[in-house]
């Protein structure tokens, strides 16, 4: 797999375990700030449409909203 120019800028961080507690503190939310603006869920529902090429599947699988 070819690499990207940008990969040389990757910085490793400690893994952060997210807290699903209903008791919130600043830390819980800010821990995830660095990456969470970039939301892969943007296209989670109704977002993407991929056409399949197989005749059998094409009627059923013309949309993959969740991926």
């Amino acid at each position, binding site marked *: 797999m070819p690499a990207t*120019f940008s990969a040389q800028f990757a910085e*490793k961080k400690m893994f952060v375990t997210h*807290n699903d507690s209903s008791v*919130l503190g600043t830390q819980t939310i800010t821990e995830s700030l*660095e*990456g969470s603006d*970039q939301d892969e869920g943007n296209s989670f529902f109704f977002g993407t449409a991929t056409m399949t090429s197989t005749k059998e599947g094409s009627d059923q699988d013309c949309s993959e909203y969740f991926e």
Partner: protein
Amino acid sequence: MNNHMIFLLSNSKDATCDFVHSELLNRKIPCFRLNTDFAPGSVEFNFSDNTAELYVNKIPLRSSEVCCVWNRRPEKIFAGNFSTSIFDEFYRKEWKSSIESFLKLIPSDKWINHPQSNLAASSKIEQLVVAKKNGLEVPDSLVTQSKKDFDFFYEKHSCRIITKPLSHGYLPDEECIYNIYTNSVDAKKHNFNNLKDCPTFFQQMINKECDVRINFIDGYFEAFLLINKSNGTQQLDIRRDNMQNVQYKPALIPKDIQIKLSSMLMNYGLRFAAIDMCISKNGTWFFLEINPNGQWAWLDILGLTDFRSYFIKGMLA
């Protein structure tokens, strides 16, 4: 009473959703939360007599009862719970279609934000084009695989160039997280061997006085200057170190900037957005990007804003 329920669509680990959910419960505002990482057996879907109903832990909700869907952070259903066997995948797809059927019955204007609006606003490059069309200042930008084009751009901006991901640079692995932030580029220091293999995003480096974070909900703007300087120079990427050394100052957005941003957001159909801008040393406001589903709750937690109240007001509108 019809059409009164706020539907929170997220995952069980979403602290921002917890933050709003708890306030809705405190205020006794009817709400219904679906975490898409739900356990098998805890959710039921039913459609009969032209009516769709979803049950979470036996509590029912009709799609017609929903006044607002907060499309917060839904994840892939049953992610990690199943193998990749075709029948497990089929099971997941059947669930996916069921929940989507329910959601499809809720009109798009009741969503914050509708996924299609989020998707429409998800391209950084297209955002820059639209921002410029709307009269906002944007940094000169280049996406290229060509070293020759890069060299020309580098010279044009007197070697003051930054690079950042076109998608996003948050790369969680099993044991750690890699981040690719905004970085300055040094033509002599950095390795350009892979430039030809993948489009890379470069921009002129703005001589920043500070960054600006703008939160928007249904016509309401709230802006903060984000200041983190080292030797008098604003950090290139304010998110570094979890923003721990950032100083915040409330900001007044110039009226003409508000009008231009409003026009952009309306065109995308976004009821909510977190917008990144910066102010140059000479006072020019530069548009950087719109995060259609960006973070905002940390400003409330820090006691700087009460955006949650405006958000809830938007949900009830």
